[in-house]
């Protein structure tokens, strides 16, 4: 029983972090139909910023993540406004190609700037764990989980209640109509991408705190973003959260009751089964699946 509870706890904590990695990716894909292959690169870039803040200023990573968020917001905004906006009307998946090129640039840039050395952000408390009954709950991961949930909820609130947020949703639903209503689509797109990059950056700092990273780790996060975002479903702000928690749990339970190397196979199997049963993901909205590009 303990093993099951331990696995469940670990799975949920990991799942929350995965959700934060994927929520920006899901937002950008659902609203703007942009497939951001550079999402993993944003995560790792955030990790480096958090690491740098910790090295140079001794800034605790859970504060440093706001710095990472700010820097990545600017990077994301500029990238969307002056690069990705140029091809948004192009054939489907052209944005994939563009972000692939950008991903190469960013990852290689980090390789050159920071070298491929593995790094981690050391804190005195992250590996301590609380004991709840016979289950150990690591402090670092718990904080990361709590923050991931909080940030997702804040994002949902911002998108649903503020004018800016609603302009994002509106532009996502019908760009033409939104523009007719006076919404500056170019700016809104850039804003959305900026927010997505900032979220990825924050997730990166947390990942840097609970594990190690180097530039080549970016690809795995991009892949995870795909799986989590689509499993949860696009078009719904909670999609990434649901997807992340499900994947986290599936992997933790799988690791516990199957030989350890089947963990990833199980995750992908779950993805495929869910998509066959519910073609728009667990909580996705059907509208976003059959988008016509206008």
């Amino acid at each position, binding site marked *: 029983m303990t*093993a099951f509870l*331990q*696995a469940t706890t*670990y799975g949920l904590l*990991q799942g929350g972090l995965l959700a934060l990695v994927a929520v920006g990716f899901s937002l950008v894909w659902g609203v703007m139909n942009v497939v951001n292959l550079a999402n993993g690169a944003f995560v790792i870039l955030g990790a480096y910023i958090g690491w740098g803040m910790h090295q140079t200023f001794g800034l605790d990573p859970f504060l440093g993540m706001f710095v990472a968020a700010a820097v990545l917001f600017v990077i994301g905004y500029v990238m969307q406004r002056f690069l990705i906006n140029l091809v948004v009307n192009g054939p489907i998946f052209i944005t994939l190609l563009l972000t692939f090129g950008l991903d190469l640039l960013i990852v*290689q840039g980090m*390789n050159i700037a920071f*070298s*491929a*050395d*593995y*790094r*981690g952000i*050391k804190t005195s408390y992250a*590996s*301590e*764990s609380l*004991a709840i009954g016979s289950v*150990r709950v*690591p402090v*670092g*991961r718990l904080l990361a989980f709590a923050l991931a949930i909080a940030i997702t909820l804040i994002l949902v609130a911002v998108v649903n209640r503020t004018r800016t947020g609603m302009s994002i949703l509106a532009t996502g639903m019908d760009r033409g109509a939104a523009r007719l209503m006076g919404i500056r689509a170019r700016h809104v797109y850039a804003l959305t991408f900026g927010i997505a990059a900032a979220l990825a950056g924050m997730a990166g700092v947390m990942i840097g705190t*609970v*594990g*190690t990273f*180097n*530039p*080549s780790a970016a690809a*795995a996060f991009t892949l995870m973003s795909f799986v989590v975002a689509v499993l949860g479903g696009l078009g719904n702000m909670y999609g990434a959260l649901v997807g992340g928690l499900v994947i986290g749990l599936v*992997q*933790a339970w*799988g*690791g*516990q009751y199957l*030989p*350890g*190397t089947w*963990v*990833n196979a199980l995750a992908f199997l779950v993805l495929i089964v869910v998509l066959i049963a519910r073609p728009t993901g667990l909580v996705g909205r059907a509208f976003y699946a059959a988008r016509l590009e206008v």
Partner: protein
Amino acid sequence: MVAGCGSKAETNNGGAASSGPLAIGASVSLTGKLAREGQLTKEGYQLCQDKVNAQGGVDVGGTKVKLAIQYQDDTSKPDVAAQLVDQFNDKGVKLILSSYGSANTEAQAAVIERNNQVMVDSAGADNKIFSKGYKRTFAVLSPATEYAAAIVKAIAELATPKPKSVVFLSADDGFSKSVTEGGMASAKSLGFTVLDPQYFTNGTSDVSSALTKVKGQHPDVIIGSVHLVEGVAIIKQSKELGVTPVGFGETVAPPTPDFAKTLGTQAENVLGSTQWTDATKGKDKYFGTAKNYSKDIQANFGHLPDYHNAEATAACLALVLATEKAASTQPDKVRNALSGLDTESFFGKIKFDPTGQNIYKPMSVIQVQNGKALTVWPKESAEAKMIWPGTR
């Protein structure tokens, strides 16, 4: 590349010794998953070239010829590494230094054999590479089966009280599996109780399932057949999950500076096996002792040497010594000289068995003490006493 052909009849240098430099081909992983280790390998090759050329070059039958290593990036992919060996062959470069890692080296070895080139392997330790009857690839590093076995032997010899049970946590790539097999065999023969090994995906940063599974069995020693990422994860997550064996041992990760830097105090007293430390016994005319080598790496690259640097330099050294011994740069003569090589060096003994592996050099076991990796085994090279138990 495709252009610039049409001159197939043209002969290229790299075969007969003439006034030009001796061209050696090295495909290293400058980008991709193995970029970190690839960079260390390149540094090792570069230092070798610098030191040899500082003494005038390689002595080929009385004439000194400068070394000129040509580098290409295989992006950490085995098929590209193999392709690059073919491309070197086109240019007449027959003497090759390997890429990093068993997968890349295995792919390269097959091409070397077909093209009648010669390769010295710096970082591909998997015994499987040498079970195929290849005659033209020689590995200076100790084979994979020794990695964990060395740790087991060190514990058996030096740990008091002697622990009873050991469990292996292993990545699922070919190299790590060979390591685990060798380690388990050694442990059984030394009287340890060997629990069932747990495997996880190569490169994962989450080994919590494996740890949760072994927690209930209370192993005395946990040995990880891993690389850096999984190695760090084992230590970190053991603490998180409350898994407390008497001691940890891991392959590949603990001797690297990144390990202690990333883990801080958690890295203390972790054992690790390594191909080389700066306490390794032996010297040669180009690099002196291990301590000299360590100073050179620090002077040239600004960091403490990693054993990946040393094994790369040793591979290059073996090629240089064989060329000198053969008094020729012809691949067949160099190949024969390599197979009969038997020499001491800063890296330890360099000698090859009939399959091409260096079974004559033992691995060393280090322990992280106060953030530094100190040699604790074998006794001749020991710089410090092994601290046991490791986790109190």
